[in-house]
């Protein structure tokens, strides 16, 4: 597992500033993992394990919370209800209104799964956001993409749905100029940005954290390097807090945009 911060620090070993060895700069290689174990021909790596663990955690958490639901929620059920209501009131209702309540389970699962996956970059031992491997993002995007296509065609008919892509209130001679833009936006840019936004944020976050973790270790010395060490240690705390925010924000944005796309499919707003 070359991506482990602990393992990364190992080749640095006693390697510190002024001891004649260079800074072991993190890079793209930190996102490649060796096989941990195999199930048949299937090679399980750390990101896969994290993804599966997160999925199981979300399922088990909500399963336990609502195993025997009570009218007056207590304990885990209370916590889960707060989470669900937050998603409903901050994400679902603003875009979809009350008619969108049937999509609540999907959005709740999506939100908490992405959030937990992102948080894994901060939790010791895991310390890797699987979403920084783009292959983990595309299945989510595909799910959302297929869903809003299906809903759009189901609710507005195939022709009606395509018609919504034609911008309203534009003079007819401008339309041929705008239609390629609308099609590119709808077919290519919209799903692409949905996925790349999440991927790029997690990728950059993990890289930043690794850089400062390693630098803190590298600059640990009893000379003037100690000053740099303190600076870098401060950056670790700062980036950690920043990532705490980014993790939540990315899950929020992904789910909010999903809700907006679903709303567009159900009924064109403009």
């Amino acid at each position, binding site marked *: 597992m070359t991506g482990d911060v602990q393992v990364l620090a190992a080749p640095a070993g006693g390697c510190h500033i002024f001891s004649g060895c260079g800074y072991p700069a993190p890079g793209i290689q930190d996102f490649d993992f060796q096989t941990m174990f195999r199930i048949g021909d299937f090679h399980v790596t750390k990101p896969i394990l994290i993804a599966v663990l997160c999925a199981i955690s979300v399922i088990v958490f909500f399963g336990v919370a609502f195993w025997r639901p009570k009218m007056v929620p207590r304990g885990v059920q209370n916590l889960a209800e707060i989470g669900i209501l937050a998603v409903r*009131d*901050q*994400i679902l*209702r*603003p*875009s979809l209104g009350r008619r969108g309540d049937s999509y609540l389970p999907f959005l709740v699962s999506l939100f908490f799964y992405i959030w937990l996956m992102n948080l894994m970059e901060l939790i010791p031992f895991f310390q890797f956001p699987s979403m920084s491997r783009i292959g983990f993002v595309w299945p989510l995007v595909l799910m959302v993409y297929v869903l809003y296509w299906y809903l759009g065609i189901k609710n507005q008919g195939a022709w009606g749905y395509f018609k919504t892509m034609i*911008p309203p209130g*534009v003079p007819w001679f401008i339309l041929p*100029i*705008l239609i*390629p*833009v*609308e*099609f*590119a*936006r709808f077919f*290519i*840019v*919209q799903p692409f*940005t949905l996925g790349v936004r999440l991927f790029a944020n997690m990728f950059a976050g993990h890289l930043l954290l690794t850089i400062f973790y390693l630098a803190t270790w590298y600059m640990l010395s009893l000379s003037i390097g100690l000053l740099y060490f303190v600076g870098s240690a401060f950056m670790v705390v700062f980036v950690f807090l920043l990532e705490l925010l980014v993790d939540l924000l990315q899950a929020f*944005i992904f789910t*909010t*945009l999903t*809700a*907006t796309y679903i709303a567009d499919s159900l009924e064109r707003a*403009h």
Partner: protein
Amino acid sequence: MGTYRSRAAAESSAEGGAKGIGVGWTVFSYLIAGMVAYGGIGWLVGRAVHASWPFPVGMLVGLGISLGYIIYRYGRQGAAE
């Protein structure tokens, strides 16, 4: 009563926030989409006539069209509604 009001206020501010995010990303998508669409058309034209200039020119034209459309649609106060 007080809680009800503050809840309603929170909901309406959340609504504004979600709309803002939606509009913001739509505008961004248009910018990229213009370049993708007309860059693509330019690239195809360039292949057909064995020249390399239509691709960047197409991208610039697409960016211009996107900008014009965004200003037309979102530039005026309340035009998005």
